[in-house]
């Protein structure tokens, strides 16, 4: 099976969020970057499928040059090769715009399976996989925890709300948006890291993919969230705040 995994590089989870001068995005200068969490699970599922059924795992990422470190990480974990869509204007594209870019790179590859993460940790659209299926004319399922290859195609386990699940059968080629938590993530080994250096990373420019930037939805401004409740922040040493909290719970909230 030839599997493409779409992987996005996102700000590291505890990166500081400072709104930049334009008011439309955060200051990126001093932040650390990481592989989007659900994409790591998508990669893991792809690697396990390859181990069971043989084939090839290709990583696809659109982003500026720094995305190269996340691509190498995926190669170090066991992906065979990568396609890097060099793109410095991701922020000007809406979800459909980014999907068009990815779709243009995917089409000539003709994969049997395309896996995306369920949702990016920065923009959180949760749409790219579903849109890709539409653009590529392929069947899809989202919120997937587990993929089983069958004679007819795939049986996938889909998460529903509140602790329910459902199995879905679908033919291949197909697109799946992977939810996190379906399997245990592997670490890159030293050997893997060494090998990754020699693996192929093909760079495509956004221009040569000829995907239009025109967007119908625009992020106008960002802001820190507003507090919904009046939170009492207790301060002092650990011991002082602990004592103050117990006082409050006992005499103000009356729940202890």
């Amino acid at each position, binding site marked *: 099976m030839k599997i493409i995994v779409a992987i996005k590089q996102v700000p590291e989870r505890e990166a500081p969020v400072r709104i930049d001068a334009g008011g439309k995005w955060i200051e990126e200068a001093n932040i650390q970057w990481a592989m989007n969490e659900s994409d790591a699970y998508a990669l893991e599922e792809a690697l396990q499928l390859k181990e069971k059924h043989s084939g090839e795992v290709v990583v696809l990422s659109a982003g500026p040059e720094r995305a190269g470190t996340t691509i190498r990480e995926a190669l170090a974990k066991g992906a065979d090769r990568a396609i890097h869509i060099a793109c410095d204007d991701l922020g000007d594209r809406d979800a459909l715009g980014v999907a068009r870019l990815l779709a243009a790179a995917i089409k000539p590859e003709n994969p049997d399976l395309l896996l995306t993460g369920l949702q990016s940790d920065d923009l959180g659209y949760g749409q790219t996989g579903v849109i890709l299926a539409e653009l590529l004319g392929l069947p899809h399922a989202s919120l997937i925890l587990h993929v089983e290859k069958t004679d007819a195609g795939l049986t996938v386990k889909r998460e529903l709300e509140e602790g329910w699940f459902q*199995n879905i059968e679908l033919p291949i080629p197909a697109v799946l948006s992977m939810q996190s938590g379906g399997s245990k993530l592997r670490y890159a080994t030293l050997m893997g890291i060494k090998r990754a250096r020699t693996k192929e990373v093909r760079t495509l420019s956004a221009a040569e993919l000829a995907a239009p930037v025109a967007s119908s939805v625009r992020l106008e401004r960002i802001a820190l969230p507003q507090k919904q409740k009046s939170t009492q922040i207790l301060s002092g040493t650990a011991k002082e705040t602990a004592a103050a909290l117990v006082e409050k719970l006992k005499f103000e909230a009356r729940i202890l």
Partner: protein
Amino acid sequence: MSSILVVIEQREARISRISWEALAAAQSLGAQLSLPVAAAIPGAQTESLAAELAGKALAKVVRVEHPLLSAYTPDGFTSALEQLVRAEQPGYVLFPHSYQVRDYAPALAARLGQVLIGDVTGIGDGPTFSRQLMQGRLNGAYRHSGAGPCFISVQSGAFHADAVQAGSAQIALFTPTIEAAQIRTRPGEPFRGSAQTVDLGSAQFIVSVGRGIKGAENLPVVEELAAALGAELAASRPICDNGWLPMERQVGSSGQTVSPKLYVAVGISGAIQHLVGIKGSQCVVAINKDPDAPIFEVADYGIVGDLFEVVPAITEAVKAAKQ
């Protein structure tokens, strides 16, 4: 003239709560823009649900009915609603942001050359639509431009179901053309995960732990606080994803909904999917080292600090108070 179309979702043959919230959002947008609101209910047997909707302040209720819509499939729903949107030409299409909607609405929007603004928590002048970014650490205001409908899905809990205005509406039937061969996926019956042995739903005291705990080996820090309080231990999703605690202890949209007297969130950032599970809590205490963590927006009491110092101190103070 333009209009607003709200797509209603059924769950176990009833209109889901979040669909009423989406209807409330549609009515409020309708009031803001002076536009009529219509509701669409897709399914195979929509008569009684349509009758229920007809008691609301709507221009009309459209039953989008076809035998192939009896079980949800993305192909069936995308095709049926594409036909409806092309026929009705609404200016806005609103959905509840459910697992079902997130599975097909982005494809429906793309088929019409549009982009869904998903997970909307508020509607401002313009209109602009706000939604969370960076896992709740930021809010973004989005605006739609260009021709074609604007697709919106609204976050659970962002609008109030009881704000839906009553009225009376006509019911229309819309029969989409769908061929069985168009439907490429075969959905199975829903099933429950592992047997539930803890009932977090009725727990009065809950200590809940998030990724701030760093590793399973540190869990005793929160277990001791839970023991001192006589509380159940719960967790955010990554803790269960990592296998540090069983999934039945997960709180949030894909876990349990809780309504304790006291919910202590330890090292939990407060992503929306977690917060929807704790809305019913009487008192929320948050311990987090990041003063801007969104959990503090919903907490009654907050302690900004290192949980490894703060939590043991609270455990001691609780023990002392209970003696």
